[in-house]
C-alpha cells in the first residue's frame, strides 16, 4: 500500500473541511425538505431523510402556491429554464456573430464600435435597468419571455472573447475557404463555429448560470406570476413563511431551493464533459 505522507494528509484534511463547509448546508436543506413542516418547526433542521419527500416535492411542483395561488414551482422551473437557455444561447449567438463582423469585415469604425461595446463592460445591468424597463414597457414587452431575455443577451465579455479567438485563427484559413468557394456565412458556420466550439460551451455554461441566477431583471419585468422564475418563487415562499398567517412550510421553501440548485449543477456536469473533450482534441 502506498504510504500517505504527512503533507498529503494535511492537504486532505483541509480539502475535507472545505468540502464539508460547502456540502453540509446543502445536505441539511435537502434532508430537511423531506420532513413535514411540523417536524421542522418542532425539532429544527434535520440531518437525515424523513418520509415526506414525495409529498413535499409533489405539492410544490404541482400545487398552485404563492400569494395569488396560481403558479406552481413546475411552471417557475420551466420559466427559469427558458430564461437560462435563452439567455445563454442568445449570448453565445449574438456575441460570436458580433465578433465575426468586427474581425472579418473591414468596415469603417469597426475598431471604434468594438471598443464601444467593450466599454459597456463597465456598466452593470443595474445602471441601465430603468431606461431598459422604460423601453420595454413602451414596446409592450413586460410580462413576456422576449422582454425577459432579449434585453440581456448582448454581451461585451462574450464579444471580447470571441474577438480574441477569431484573431488567433490564421488568415490563410479564410483565404483557403474563399478559394474553396465558401461565402462569408459558410466560412462562419463551417469553419469558425466548429473551431470555437469549446469556447462556445464554456461561455454557455457561465452564461446559463448567470441567466439562471437573474433576480433583479425578472422581478422588475414580470408582474404576472405565470412568468415568475424559481428564484422569485424562493423569495416569495420565504416571505410568506415569515409574514404569513399560516403554519410556515419550511420544507417547501427548502425543496424550492434544492430545485433551483439542481438544474445548474446538472448543466455544469453535462457540459463540462464536452468542454473538457473540446479542450483535449481541438487545435487551430
Amino acid at each position, binding site marked *: 500500500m502506498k504510504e500517505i505522507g504527512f503533507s498529503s494528509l494535511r492537504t486532505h484534511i483541509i480539502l475535507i473541511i472545505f468540502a464539508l463547509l460547502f456540502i453540509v448546508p446543502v445536505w441539511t436543506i435537502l434532508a430537511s425538505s423531506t420532513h413535514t413542516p411540523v417536524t421542522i418547526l418542532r425539532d429544527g433542521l434535520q440531518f437525515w431523510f424523513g418520509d415526506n419527500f414525495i409529498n413535499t416535492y409533489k405539492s410544490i411542483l404541482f400545487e398552485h402556491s404563492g400569494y395569488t395561488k396560481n403558479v406552481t414551482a413546475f411552471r417557475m422551473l420551466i420559466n427559469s429554464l427558458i430564461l437560462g437557455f435563452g439567455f445563454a444561447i442568445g449570448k453565445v449567438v449574438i456575441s460570436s456573430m458580433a465578433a465575426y463582423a468586427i474581425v472579418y469585415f473591414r468596415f469603417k469604425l469597426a475598431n471604434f464600435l468594438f471598443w464601444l461595446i467593450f466599454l459597456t463592460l463597465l456598466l452593470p445591468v443595474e445602471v441601465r435597468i430603468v431606461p431598459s424597463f422604460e423601453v420595454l414597457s413602451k414596446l409592450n414587452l413586460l410580462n413576456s419571455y422576449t422582454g425577459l431575455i432579449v434585453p440581456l443577451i448582448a454581451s461585451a465579455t462574450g464579444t471580447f472573447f470571441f474577438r480574441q479567438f477569431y484573431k488567433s485563427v*490564421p488568415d*490563410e*484559413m479564410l*483565404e*483557403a*475557404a*474563399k*478559394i*474553396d*468557394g*465558401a461565402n462569408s456565412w*459558410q466560412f462562419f458556420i*463551417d*469553419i469558425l463555429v*466548429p*473551431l470555437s*466550439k469549446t469556447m462556445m460551451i464554456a461561455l454557455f455554461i457561465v452564461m446559463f448560470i448567470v441567466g439562471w441566477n437573474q433576480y433583479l431583471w425578472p422581478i422588475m419585468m414580470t408582474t404576472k406570476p405565470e412568468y415568475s422564475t424559481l428564484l422569485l418563487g424562493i423569495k416569495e415562499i420565504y416571505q410568506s413563511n415569515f409574514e404569513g398567517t399560516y403554519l410556515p412550510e419550511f420544507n417547501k421553501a427548502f425543496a424550492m431551493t434544492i430545485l433551483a440548485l439542481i438544474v445548474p449543477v446538472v448543466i455544469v456536469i453535462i457540459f463540462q464533459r464536452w468542454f473538457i473533450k473540446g479542450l483535449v*482534441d*481541438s*487545435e*487551430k
Partner: protein
Amino acid sequence: MGYIEIEKVSKWYKKDHLIIKDLTLSVAKGEFLVIVGPSGCGKSTLLRMIAGLEEINSGVIKIEDEVVNNLSPADRDIAMVFQNYALYPHMNVYKNLSYGLKNRKVPKDIIDKKVKETSKLLQIEELLDRKPSELSGGQRQRVAMGRAIIREPKAFLFDEPLSNLDAKLRHQMRLEIRKLHDKLGITSIYVTHDQVEAMTLADRIVVMNGGRVEQIGTPDEIYNTPASIFVAKFMGTPPMNIFQMKISDGKIDFFGTSVEISNPDGMVFVGIRPEAIQDARSDIVIEVLVTMVERLGSENIIYGECQGEQIVIKSKKMPEKNNSMQFYLSKESIYIFS
C-alpha cells in the same frame, strides 16, 4: 497569347510606396513557372493578386483570356497551396479534400470518386479519416496539394509550400511536385525564396527584385546568362563573386592576367562563379590566400583573399587555412556587368 496574362500590374498600400511596379508577365498553358526573389520583393503579393486575395490597384490580370480583376477567388477557378497548408483543423482529410467541391454543389457520388482518385494519386488513402493534427508535415503537405488537385482548376498557385518541411522531406516533396505536374500538366505558378527549388522545378524562372522582374528565362538561361548582378548573385550557391574593375584599352587586369573585353572603357563589374574556379590548368591563374574552408562532403567551399579582394571557390581540394594556393579559370567563365 499566354494562358495567364499579367499586364502592367501595380500594387500599393500607400500611393508613394509601390509593392509591385508595372509588372508584365505571361504564363503559357501547362507551364511550371517559378517566381523567385528575396523576401519583400513582392512575389507573394503577385501570387495573391492572381489568386484574388489581394486587390489589383492598376493593370489587368487575365486567365484564359478572361479579365479576372474583379472576380472573387472562387470564381477564378484557381487552387492555392499555402505555406502553412491552412488545412481545416476540425475536418478530417476526406472533408478537407471535399470542402471545395461541396461548396460548388458537386453531387456526392462524384465527390466520393474524386476524393478516392486524388488520395490514391497522392498516396494518402489510409489517412482519409484522420484529422490534420494527426498527420506529419509531409502528409499535411500532401493533403494541401490534394485539396488543390481535386478541383482540377485552371491553375495551381503555390506559396512557398515547402518552407515548413525539413530538408530531407523538402527534397522529396520537390521531386513529387514536379512529377505530379508532369502527370497532370496543369499550369502552375510557384513562389519561393529558395533558388534551388526554382532551378529544379521550373520550366521558366522569374527572378523578382523590389517589385520588378529582373529576368525571365529557363533555369539554364538564368544560370548561364544572368541579366544583372542581382540575378547573378541570387541564383547559385555560393553566390557569384563580383569584383569592380576598370577597362582600359579594351582590357581588364584580372588579378594579374590581362583579359580582353569588348565593352567600352570605364568601370565594370566582373563576375566569376565559385564553381568555375578550378584546380585543373586553364587560361588564368590566380593566387588565393585561404582564410576559411567549409566541408560539404563531396566538395569544399573555400573562402579566401586574392590581392585584397574576398573570393569564394567551390573545389574538391581541401587546403589548409592561411595557405596560399593556385586556382585556375577560363576566360569564357568571366561575366561582365556594366
